[in-house]
């Protein structure tokens, strides 16, 4: 009787933990997809502004800078939500503080680079913006890959 009770309690605990882990994973993947969509949007709007139109008046530069920064705000807000969701899981964490610090650093650089590119005619800017967006994608992929790595899969490094 006692054994049956213990087994039942363990089964309930495992079910709750599994449901919790599954919910965290689904939410994290949802936020990650939103971040990827926003990065794609920033990449496309930067490309349209910087490469496809060469004549930048102050007014349009101002508008491009403001709209890009609003997108960066939304990106950082979504990123903060991802960090909150992933921090809740207690079994293991793929160094969330390192990921957070590196992502925020690159995002800060992206904000500045877009701002400079909006007003300058520097040919390097689109490449730097592309590299920063790629860096953000990569950091996100690396973290999600490591954070939700199947238990029996080896670590990548």
């Amino acid at each position, binding site marked *: 009787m006692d054994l049956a009770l213990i087994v039942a309690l363990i089964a309930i605990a495992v079910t709750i933990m599994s449901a919790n882990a599954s919910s965290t994973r689904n939410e994290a993947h949802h936020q990650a997809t939103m971040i990827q969509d926003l990065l794609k949007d920033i990449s496309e709007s930067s490309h349209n502004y910087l490469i496809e139109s060469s004549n930048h008046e*102050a007014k349009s530069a101002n508008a491009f800078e403001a709209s890009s920064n609003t997108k960066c705000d939304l990106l950082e807000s979504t990123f903060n939500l991802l960090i909150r969701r992933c921090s809740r899981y207690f079994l293991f964490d793929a160094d969330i503080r390192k990921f957070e610090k590196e992502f925020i*650093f690159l995002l800060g650089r992206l*904000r*500045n680079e877009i701002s400079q590119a909006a007003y300058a005619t520097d040919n390097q800017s689109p490449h730097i913006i592309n590299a920063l967006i790629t860096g953000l994608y990569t950091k996100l992929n690396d973290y999600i890959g490591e954070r939700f790595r199947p238990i029996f899969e080896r670590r990548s490094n």
Partner: protein
Amino acid sequence: MKTETTLDVSEYTDLPIGRNHLDGPKNGADYRDNHVIPALDEYSTVKIDFTKTLGTTPSFLEELFGGLIRSGYIDTSNLLNRVHVIYKYESVKNNIKKYIIEAGDHLEKNRKK
């Protein structure tokens, strides 16, 4: 000198963008000269609160904070100690610190020339 005040940027404008008058009547240089400097004249600590704004841009922030250094009104360490920025996003707060330090370094280099 009084101790502390908080400037609510949203009372100046909902969307603080633009570097100077060429970008519109509400801009970083105007906010610096007509709101932040008078507050720094009167208070030892000034909190600049962006919470209720709809967002801002690097050019507004650079002109506001970097401009305080470039104008010679205040030095880097004093500015970092006396002005506290309230902003939701960490990357923006890091950038503000960067603008202040870079403006200070630039000024220092020019003095040495």
